[in-house]
C-alpha cells in the first residue's frame, strides 16, 4: 500500500525532484517545438567614439548598412520572403525617442516590407539584451514566430548632444532615492571600489587583461565570423574592432588620472583606462520558434533559455549582475558552475570584478575575448553584441550567460544554450 501511495505522491510533487545537476543534462537533451532558438547573431565592428570610423555616421545609416549585410546571411527562402519576420525590436539609448522613427526607416530601406513591424526599446545599457527578451517573449506567447532583435548606438553622434542622464524635476530632487538616479556612473563605480575594497591595481590589471584578451582574439581572427563589414559613405569597409590596444599593461594604466574624482586627496580609482570606452556599433540577433525554424530549414545556433532583470540601489548600480545572475539561475534551476562562459559587461573594472568575485566565477570563464573596457560599450548595442560574441565562444551543448549592470540601478542577465 505504502508503495502505491508513494507512487501517486511522486506524480504530484514534481517540484525539486530534479536537482540542478540532472536538470542540466535534461536541458541539453530536450528540444521542444516551442523553444525560442537563435538563427543568426552578428554585429558590426565596434569603433571608437568621436574619432573612430563611424564617428560621422548617423545610426539609421549604420543600421541600414548592417541590415543589408545581415539579410545577406539569411537562407534564400527567408531572404526572399522577409515578411516572415513579423516584428523587429531595436534597443537604443541615446537617440531622441530611442530612434523609433529613423530606425523603422532603416528597416524599410534595407528591404523589409512595411508589414514587418518595428519598435524601439530602452533599458539603458541592457537595451540590446532587453530587445532579445522582447522578441523571445513574443515568440513564447505565440504572438509571432520569427522576430529580429537589434541594438544600435552612436555615442559619437548622440552622447554629447543630449544629457545622457536626462533631468529630474525640482520637486523630485527632494526625494533622496529619486535623486540617486542622477549620480554619474563613474561615481557609482567609485562607491563600489571603496565599499568592497577593490583597489586601483586590481582594476588596472583587470583592464589590461581585457585589452590583451581582445587583442589576441582579433589577432587570431576569432571575431571574423561574428563581425559583418560596414561600408562607409566614402567606400571604406570597416570590419575590425578599433578599441583594443595590445600594448596596454597594468603599469601603463597606472599612470592615468582618475576620471571622476579629480581631487587627488580623495583617491579616485576609476580612470579612462579601467572604464568602458565610448563607442559606436550595431548588432542583431534573429530569433525563431523551433518548429518554424525547422520547417524553413533555418540554421539553429543556439537556444534562448531565460532572461531576468532586477533592481539594485542606484548609487551602486554596477552590482547589478551580482543580483541578476543568481535570480536567473534560480529560475532555470541551474548552478553557477553549470555555466561555461559569462559575458559580463565591463562598464567599469571595479564593478565587473566585484560581480565575478562575489559570485565565485572562475576568471577564465569571464569575457574570454575581452570586454567593453577593450572593445567598447555602445550602450544600446552592447547586449546584442555580447550574444553575438558568446555564441562563438560557446561550444555545442554549453551554456552561457550574458549580463550587465544598468544605469539608475538594475542588473539584467540572460542564459543561452549553444546547439
Amino acid at each position: 500500500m505504502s508503495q502505491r501511495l508513494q507512487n501517486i505522491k511522486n506524480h504530484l510533487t514534481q517540484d525539486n525532484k530534479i536537482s540542478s545537476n540532472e536538470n542540466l543534462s535534461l536541458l541539453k537533451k530536450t528540444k521542444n517545438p516551442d523553444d525560442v532558438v537563435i538563427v543568426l547573431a552578428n554585429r558590426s565592428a565596434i569603433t571608437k567614439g568621436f574619432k573612430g570610423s563611424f564617428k560621422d555616421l548617423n545610426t539609421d545609416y549604420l543600421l541600414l548598412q548592417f541590415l543589408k549585410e545581415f539579410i545577406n546571411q539569411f537562407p534564400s527562402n527567408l531572404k526572399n520572403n522577409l515578411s516572415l519576420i513579423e516584428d523587429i525590436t531595436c534597443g537604443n539609448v541615446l537617440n531622441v525617442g530611442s530612434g523609433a522613427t529613423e530606425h523603422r526607416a532603416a528597416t524599410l530601406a534595407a528591404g523589409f516590407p512595411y508589414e514587418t513591424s518595428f519598435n524601439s526599446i530602452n533599458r539603458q545599457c541592457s537595451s540590446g539584451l532587453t530587445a532579445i527578451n522582447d522578441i523571445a517573449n513574443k515568440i513564447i506567447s505565440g504572438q509571432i514566430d520569427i522576430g529580429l532583435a537589434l541594438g544600435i548606438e552612436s555615442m559619437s553622434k548622440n552622447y554629447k548632444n543630449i544629457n545622457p542622464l536626462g533631468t529630474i524635476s525640482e520637486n523630485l530632487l527632494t526625494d533622496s532615492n529619486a535623486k540617486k538616479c542622477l549620480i554619474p556612473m563613474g561615481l557609482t563605480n567609485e562607491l563600489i571600489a571603496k565599499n568592497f575594497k577593490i583597489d586601483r591595481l586590481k582594476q588596472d590589471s583587470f583592464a589590461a587583461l581585457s585589452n590583451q584578451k581582445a587583442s589576441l582574439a582579433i589577432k587570431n581572427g576569432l571575431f571574423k565570423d561574428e563581425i559583418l563589414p560596414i561600408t562607409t559613405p566614402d567606400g571604406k569597409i570597416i570590419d575590425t574592432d578599433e578599441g583594443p590596444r595590445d600594448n596596454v599593461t597594468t603599469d601603463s594604466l597606472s599612470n592615468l588620472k582618475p576620471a571622476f574624482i579629480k581631487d587627488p586627496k580623495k583617491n579616485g580609482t576609476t580612470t579612462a583606462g579601467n572604464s568602458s570606452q565610448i563607442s559606436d556599433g550595431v548588432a542583431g540577433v534573429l530569433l525563431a520558434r523551433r518548429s518554424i525554424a525547422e520547417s524553413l530549414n533555418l540554421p539553429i545556433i543556439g537556444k534562448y533559455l531565460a532572461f531576468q532583470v532586477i533592481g539594485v540601489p542606484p548609487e551602486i548600480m554596477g552590482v547589478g549582475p551580482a543580483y541578476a545572475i543568481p535570480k536567473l539561475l534560480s529560475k532555470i534551476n541551474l548552478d553557477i558552475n553549470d555555466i561555461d562562459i559569462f559575458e559580463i559587461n565591463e562598464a567599469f573594472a571595479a564593478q565587473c570584478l566585484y560581480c565575478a568575485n562575489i559570485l565565485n566565477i572562475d576568471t577564465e570563464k569571464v569575457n574570454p575575448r575581452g570586454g567593453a573596457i577593450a572593445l567598447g560599450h555602445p550602450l544600446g548595442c552592447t547586449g546584442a553584441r555580447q550574444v553575438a560574441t558568446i555564441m562563438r565562444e560557446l561550444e555545442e551543448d554549453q551554456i552561457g550567460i550574458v549580463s550587465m549592470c544598468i544605469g539608475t540601478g538594475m542588473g539584467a542577465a540572460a542564459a543561452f544554450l549553444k546547439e
Partner: protein
Amino acid sequence: MNGYHMEGFSGYSVKYSPFYDNKLAIASGANFGLVGNGKLYILDINNQGKLEEYNSFITQDCLFDTAWNELHENQLVVAQGDGSLRLFDITQKDYPIAVFKEHEREVLSCNWNLVNKNTFISSSWDGTVKIWSPLRPNSLSTLIPNPMKVIEYIDRVDIPLSHQNAHSDMTQNRNCIYQSIFSPHDPNLILTCAGNSYITLFDMRQAATANNQQNFLSHGGLETLTCDFNKYRPNIIASGGVDNAIRIWDLRMIETTRGNLSATTTTRPKCVNEVSKAHELAVRKVVWSPHESTLLLSASYDMTCSVWRDLSFNGKVPTNRTNNTHIGKGCITRFGAHTEFVFGIDWSLWGKPGYIASTAWDGNAYIWKGY
C-alpha cells in the same frame, strides 16, 4: 451529462465495448486502489439514457485497467494489482474464465491488439511488458525496455514513509511501465511509457533484444504516465506526464537541422507539438479520437478532462504550428465535474461522434459530450 456512482470504489479505467453500443466496463479499486479489493463494473446505458449496473465482479486486489476482447463480445481482460491479468465473461457470475499470472508486481495497463485481435498486451511495475494470447496460460513474449541511462534522481533515496525497513526501500517509480499499447495500424508495433521518462517503441518483427527498440526521453526526466497512437496518422503519437505537459511526436525520426558550425544530426523522434501546462497537475491519460485525426482527450490529477485540437496538423499536412501559439492552447472542452483525480477516459465509438466516458477517484463515472 450522465453519471453512475460506484459506492466504495475509485475508478481507474473506463472502456466502451467495441460490440455493444450501450455497454461500458470500469476497472476500480477500494480505498483509492491503494489497498483492498478491486471491482469490475459492466454498465449499461438504458433506454432512458441512464447508466445502470449490468454485472460486476469483485477481485482480490485493485484493478488498474481493462480491455475488451476484440474477437468476443462478452469477454474482457483486467490488469490487477497482484500481478495477474484476468479474463472475464460478462454473462457469467463472480469468477474469471482465465487467469494469467506472470508479472511480479502490479499490472498497470492492458490493451487488446486491434489488428491481429488474437493477442493482448500488459505492462507492469516489474519493468516488463508481456504479450499474451487468451488461449494460452503463459505469455507469448516478454519485452523489457532498456533501463537506459537512468536519470540519477530516480535512484535517489526519498524520505521514507516510516522507519520500517519495508517502507524505506523505495526504488521509486523507475520500473513502472505505466502503459503499453499496440499500434492500431500495424499489429507488430508496441509503444510503452515508463517512470524513467522514456517512451519505447518495439517492433515485434525483430528479435526482442535490448537493441531492437527505439527509446527517447519524452517528459524532461519526469515520469511519462501515458501514451497513445493516433488512429489516423500511423507515425504520430501523444504522451503525457508529470511535467503537466502533453507532447505529440512524429516517430519517423526526421533529421533535425543543426547550426552551421556542426555537421551532426539527430535521428530521434521529433516533438512536433506540445501543450505545456496542459493541466495544473500531472497528465494521467491521453487518448486520440476515433473519429478525427486531430482531436486528443486528456485526463489529469487536477480533476479535469480536456479535449484538445492538435494544431500541428490541419487534417492534410503539418502546419508547423504548436498549440502554445493559440490563445486557448487549442483546448476545446474542459470537463470539471469530477471531484478527485481522473484516471480513466474513453471516446465513444457509437452514434454521434464526441461522446466521452470518464471515471475518477471520486467513484463516479460520467458520460459527457466533448464537442
